[in-house]
């Protein structure tokens, strides 16, 4: 084969046959640019932020949240150059610190620490009160805030989690808690439909002491209220005598929801009882009442009233010109008690007669357990020389459930009586909290079932302990 002539055709074809150049330098270039943009620059700006600002100037600081301290953020990353690492939008509440990763990620190559969260979220309750118990149980101290609360899931990510994170893993400890903590009072629990124990209801005991008692048939009747209150009489379908004749009461007549719709406003004598249960003491002047509160004040009012009424020449009140004489309580047999003003004896004796009538017959004793105690009363009070009474203390207002939340507003489509057997309850000591079976008529556990609501632990329970409840005195 003769050699090719070295003309332009041979040369051009030889050139065309050479592999296309540029692959190597293009590879180096792209690799370098990618590494610098994605890793080198953000890393340097995070580790050595001062390199990225003019000498003498400070790296821009992120403002601390209200009531918080930005613990991890000694010097933020310069120009937020590490923001290109952000894998997803922060929750709206955390977004103000989106430009400063180190606010939460305080230590490189370590997962976000609970202390970083608690720098702002100081009041987050623990799961268990006893710190030693937490330390002794890996499942507790290995559970981090971020085990459940994961940010970078979008603007509403945390809100969604708080609503939905329902502790699918609660049962991993609570299904067999007794094996780890033999002395615990907490019963083992699994699925709500099949393995949830009876509720433990907080019940007032002697002296106002609150105690959580596992609900059984006998719990009904255990609440020491110090009151006499038959729900059945008040809720009678045919009605009950009121100041303006027969009135049919319903639950909402006395139980008004709180503005937050979770619980109810406190039932008070003034707002809910006194329109019927008048504290009038003088049949001749039914619009005069003793104050509701301490017996001492009531007795002093009586003593002062009859002392003045006996000596005064001025008409005290105009009587109703027509109609029957008002009696202490609507519906009471209208045996017209004689006026005490014109009664026998002196002012003290009249006041004593009125007090006996009021405490023992017409008013106090209707709702309270009243007992007569030896006098005299408190020195220096006008009523000290009258018969003295003591009223059994009323149980403090308290929550029935300490470790769960029941939202009445969510259940407003059902009638009260579907769960609370109030219309049949004749005693105040009866606890009208329904049993778990009532809940189960609508709610099943996590496994969905036709016609029922799938419910996980988080529907009623929270992982974090609530702040300890201070018992509230009943006004």
């Amino acid at each position, binding site marked *: 084969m003769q050699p090719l002539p070295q003309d332009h055709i041979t040369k051009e*074809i030889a050139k065309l046959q050479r592999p296309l150049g540029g692959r190597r330098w293009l*590879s180096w270039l*792209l690799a370098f640019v990618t590494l610098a943009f994605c890793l080198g620059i953000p890393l340097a700006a995070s580790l050595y932020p001062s390199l990225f600002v003019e000498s003498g100037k400070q790296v821009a600081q992120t403002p601390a949240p209200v009531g918080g301290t930005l613990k991890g953020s000694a010097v933020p990353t310069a120009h937020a150059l590490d923001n290109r*690492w952000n894998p997803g939008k922060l929750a709206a509440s955390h977004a103000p610190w989106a430009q400063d990763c180190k606010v939460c990620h305080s230590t490189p190559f370590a997962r976000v620490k609970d202390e970083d969260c608690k720098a702002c979220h100081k009041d987050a309750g623990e799961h268990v009160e006893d710190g030693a118990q937490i330390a002794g149980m890996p499942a507790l101290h290995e559970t981090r805030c971020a085990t459940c609360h994961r940010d970078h899931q979008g603007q509403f990510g945390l809100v969604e989690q708080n609503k939905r994170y329902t502790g699918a893993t609660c049962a991993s400890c609570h299904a067999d808690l007794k094996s780890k903590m033999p002395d615990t009072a907490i019963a083992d629990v699994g699925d709500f439909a099949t393995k949830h124990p009876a509720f433990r209801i907080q019940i007032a005991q002697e002296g106002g002491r609150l105690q959580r008692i596992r609900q059984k048939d006998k719990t009904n009747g255990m609440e020491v209220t110090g009151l006499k209150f038959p729900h059945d009489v008040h809720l009678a379908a045919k009605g009950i005598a009121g100041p303006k004749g027969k009135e049919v009461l319903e639950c909402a007549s006395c139980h008004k929801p709180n503005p937050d719709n979770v619980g109810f406003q406190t039932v008070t004598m003034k707002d809910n009882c006194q329109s019927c249960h008048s504290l009038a003491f003088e049949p001749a002047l039914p619009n005069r009442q003793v104050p509701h509160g301490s017996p001492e004040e009531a007795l002093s009012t009586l003593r002062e009233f009859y002392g003045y009424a006996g000596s005064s020449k001025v008409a005290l009140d105009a009587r109703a010109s027509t109609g029957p004489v008002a009696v202490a309580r609507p519906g009471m047999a209208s045996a017209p008690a004689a006026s005490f003003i014109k009664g026998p004896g002196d002012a003290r004796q009249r006041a004593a007669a009125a007090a006996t009538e009021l405490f023992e017959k017409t008013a106090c004793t209707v709702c309270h357990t009243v007992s007569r105690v030896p006098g005299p009363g408190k020195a220096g009070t006008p009523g000290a020389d009258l018969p003295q009474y003591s009223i059994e203390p009323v149980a403090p207002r308290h929550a029935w459930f300490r470790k769960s939340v029941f939202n009445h507003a969510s259940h407003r489509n059902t009638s009260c009586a579907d769960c609370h057997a109030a219309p049949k309850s004749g005693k105040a000591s009866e606890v009208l909290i329904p049993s778990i079976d009532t809940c189960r008529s609508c709610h099943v556990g996590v496994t969905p079932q036709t016609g029922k609501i799938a419910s996980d632990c988080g529907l009623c329970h929270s992982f974090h302990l609530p702040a300890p409840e201070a018992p509230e005195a009943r006004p």
Partner: protein
Amino acid sequence: MTQSNFISYERHRYFKWAVVLGTICVLLYAFHTPELTPGGGTWLGYGLGTFGALLILLLLAFGLRKRAYRSDLGNLRGWLSAHVFFGILLALVATLHTGFEFGWNIHTLAYVLTMGVIISGLWGVGLYLRQPTLMGNLLDGRTLQDLGQDLRSFDDQCRVVAKDHPRLMTMIEESASGAIFSSFWGRLTGGNRRCATAKVLAQMAREGTQQLDDREHRAQAEVQTLQFRRIQKLKRIREFVRLRTWTEMWLLLHVPMSLALLMALIAHIVAVFFYW
């Protein structure tokens, strides 16, 4: 067809592997119930991420094995077969690893680069399956320099025919000195807008033969035929070079992008654990 290529290598051995592994990944994803949202942060997310990273290393190793001519580590056709099918598997694994969460960040950049490399790879597979036959047909058992020799012989024949006609000689030399491609762009399209031979043929057609005497008339007709055959040959060379250029062009995307991907992958992993 009984001959095996890199697709059907060892009765589709790597295709079967990819199908089995891909099915396992899809089933795991389908039956996985993440406590919060799916993504790289769940145990399956970490698992798929690790598997994907290992696949990327295996796929990149093909580039090394390809250059290691003395290696005994499997034959190259097997490596290519695995490279193709595991590359397609990687598209699935990487997509599941994302949990379908994307954003303007380096993590999604790594994903985009992964998909870019895989798509350019699929393009390469298409080229490798189609081009060699086309290129073989164009050369018909000869070499590119043989075709160049044909051009040269057309030019010599023209010179003999037109030796007494300076006007024709000028045109023949103009045609003979023209380049196959006047710019790199032509290599991608397979054409040459400034082709000297095409220009000469156009000039001959435009000027016609009316003014010429009999001898020159005959000579020009012969030259025209030869120039027409020359341009046919040129088109064959250009089409061959076009095909060949594209078989290299896709690699010019595939290889640098895969190295950028390696860097983005490193950045992705470091970033994820730096701010864990």
